[in-house]
């Protein structure tokens, strides 16, 4: 058992490294308004965050992560480019379903984080290299993903705009995504809905229903998707391996999925920028589907650092690009943002003296 003081000491060393990289330390509240988090993350957050009620403020959450309060703070007052860092506890419920694990995960733990708000093209590389450098003594495995590739591939499908939007919306829900893809790849008979005499009830309006029915009764807009597209998407989702090899595969795929060509070149530029910072791209595993298993707000590069010998551990560090989140929180205004967190408690257990 590593004492809490030792974990904090590791956290402070990481924080120093973030400050040395130009970040300003911020200290967001621990009690956060729940409505913003609920709207962003949906019901998942209730299963994961501790919610409580304040007689005046209403529903509040014990900070489940720092990203939302840091983004809100920046959107309210920040100027670009801006680099922020923080160190503090986050709180997560661990509700595991029918059987409790023998070694439940921590309900509260430290996060040391770094967030970069910048339009510079090498911002991704800066953040990845910073985390890589700090964690180098811990000999972790680095994995990178790129939601840009997947979202661009979906956006380029020869389907109607609403169908492409629907697929993009469910990209983080693999089962639902596959079912939609199957549906769109087949000749779909128009649906017919029986009229019933039930009186109208509830807030959803009759006009909303009629709009959906006319959409469905009209059948698919345009022909079904050529099954080759499903195969191409599956090939894209399963690209995984050392980053330079994966990049070669992606370039070949881009001949068949032209919509990803630009994202592939952005990935290539990012890997070059990372190499220019002294990191061998061949030591980074690229997994095209990595971001599908992370929080829904990442919409570009995603990354995680995991401890090989600890398969039961969560990632020691993780992060990514979340431009979409700043758009949601900024009421129309968006700022390119990329960042990540390290768990000092796990680093302390590895006894690898980071920084």
């Amino acid at each position: 058992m590593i004492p809490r003081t030792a974990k904090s000491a590791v956290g402070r060393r990481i924080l120093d490294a973030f400050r040395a990289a130009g970040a300003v330390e911020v200290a967001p509240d621990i009690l956060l308004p729940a409505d913003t988090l609920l709207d962003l993350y949906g019901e998942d957050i209730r299963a994961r965050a501790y919610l409580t009620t304040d007689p005046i403020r209403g529903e509040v959450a014990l900070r489940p992560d720092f990203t939302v309060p840091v983004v809100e703070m920046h959107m309210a007052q920040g100027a670009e480019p801006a680099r922020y860092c923080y160190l503090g506890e986050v709180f997560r419920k661990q509700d595991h379903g029918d059987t409790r694990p023998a070694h439940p995960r921590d309900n509260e733990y430290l996060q040391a984080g770094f967030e970069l708000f910048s339009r510079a093209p090498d911002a991704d590389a800066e953040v990845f290299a910073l985390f890589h450098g700090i964690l180098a003594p811990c000999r972790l495995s680095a994995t990178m993903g790129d939601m840009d590739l997947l979202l661009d591939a979906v956006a380029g499908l020869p389907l109607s705009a609403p169908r492409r939007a629907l697929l993009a919306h469910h990209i983080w829900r693999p089962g639902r995504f596959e079912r939609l893809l199957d549906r769109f790849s087949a000749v779909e008979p128009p649906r017919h809905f029986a009229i019933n005499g039930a009186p109208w009830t509830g807030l959803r309006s009759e006009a909303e229903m009629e709009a959906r029915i006319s959409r469905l009764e009209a059948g698919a807009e345009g022909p079904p998707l050529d099954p080759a597209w499903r195969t191409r998407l599956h090939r894209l989702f399963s690209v995984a391996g050392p980053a330079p090899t994966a990049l070669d595969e992606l370039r070949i795929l881009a001949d068949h999925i032209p919509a990803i060509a630009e994202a592939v070149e952005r990935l290539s530029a990012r890997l070059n920028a990372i190499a220019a910072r002294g990191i061998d791209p061949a030591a980074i595993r690229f997994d095209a589907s990595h971001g599908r298993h992370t929080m829904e707000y990442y919409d570009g590069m995603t990354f995680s650092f995991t401890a090989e010998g600890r398969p039961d551990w969560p990632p020691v560090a993780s992060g990514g690009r979340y431009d979409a989140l700043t758009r949601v929180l900024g009421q129309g205004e968006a700022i390119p943002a990329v960042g990540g967190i390290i768990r000092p408690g796990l680093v302390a257990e590895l006894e690898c003296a980071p920084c």
Partner: protein
Amino acid sequence: MLKLGLPSKGRLMEQSFDWFAGRGIRLSRSGSDREYAARAEGVEGLSLVLLSAGEIPRELAAGRIHLGVTGSDLIREKLAGWRSDVVELAPMGFGHADLVLAVPACWRDCETLDDFASIARDFRAAHGFRLRIATKYHRLVRAFLSEHEVADYQLVDSQGATEGTVANLTAEAIADITSTGETLRANHLKILPDAVIHESQATLVANRRAVETGATAELAAHLGLPPHVA
């Protein structure tokens, strides 16, 4: 001494008495029917306590009672990681009720859970907030919808008269227990056939540690239950 907890009221208690009587154990209330005390005859070493059905899962998990009769829905809803604490010994064949997802009957475009997911997304875009489902079964409903990858909804708590929340505009759909569906129909709601979240019935449940004792094995044999493999 094994302690058996039974629901203290109504049909569930009567039917539990009948179930045990059919297996040679006579349970009865002692004194007046307002007194929450009871006794067991026909078997040695069994004492009976009457308590609220909703509290039986918690008392079982804590080991304050060794056996209990309660709905399989309440076990799953009230005990996180229930299999770690309790063992279901026997479904009892009464107290049937399904936890279902129900939507306004007038939603004629909503025939499946996939329709529901699609409507939830449209609703969120049109109204600026997530479609609300009123329920008191938060954990079961959330786990079901998460497993089926439904997004764009939120749960709102409703501890009673849940079927009325849609007409009151405090929810767009509900998830609640129903046996005949009559209350749902009366409130102009319909069940989504592929969204039966849990099929509940009265169940004889044992504390996990109590299951490993000889006393429980003897009682199980007396009741004609197959020996439990813990």
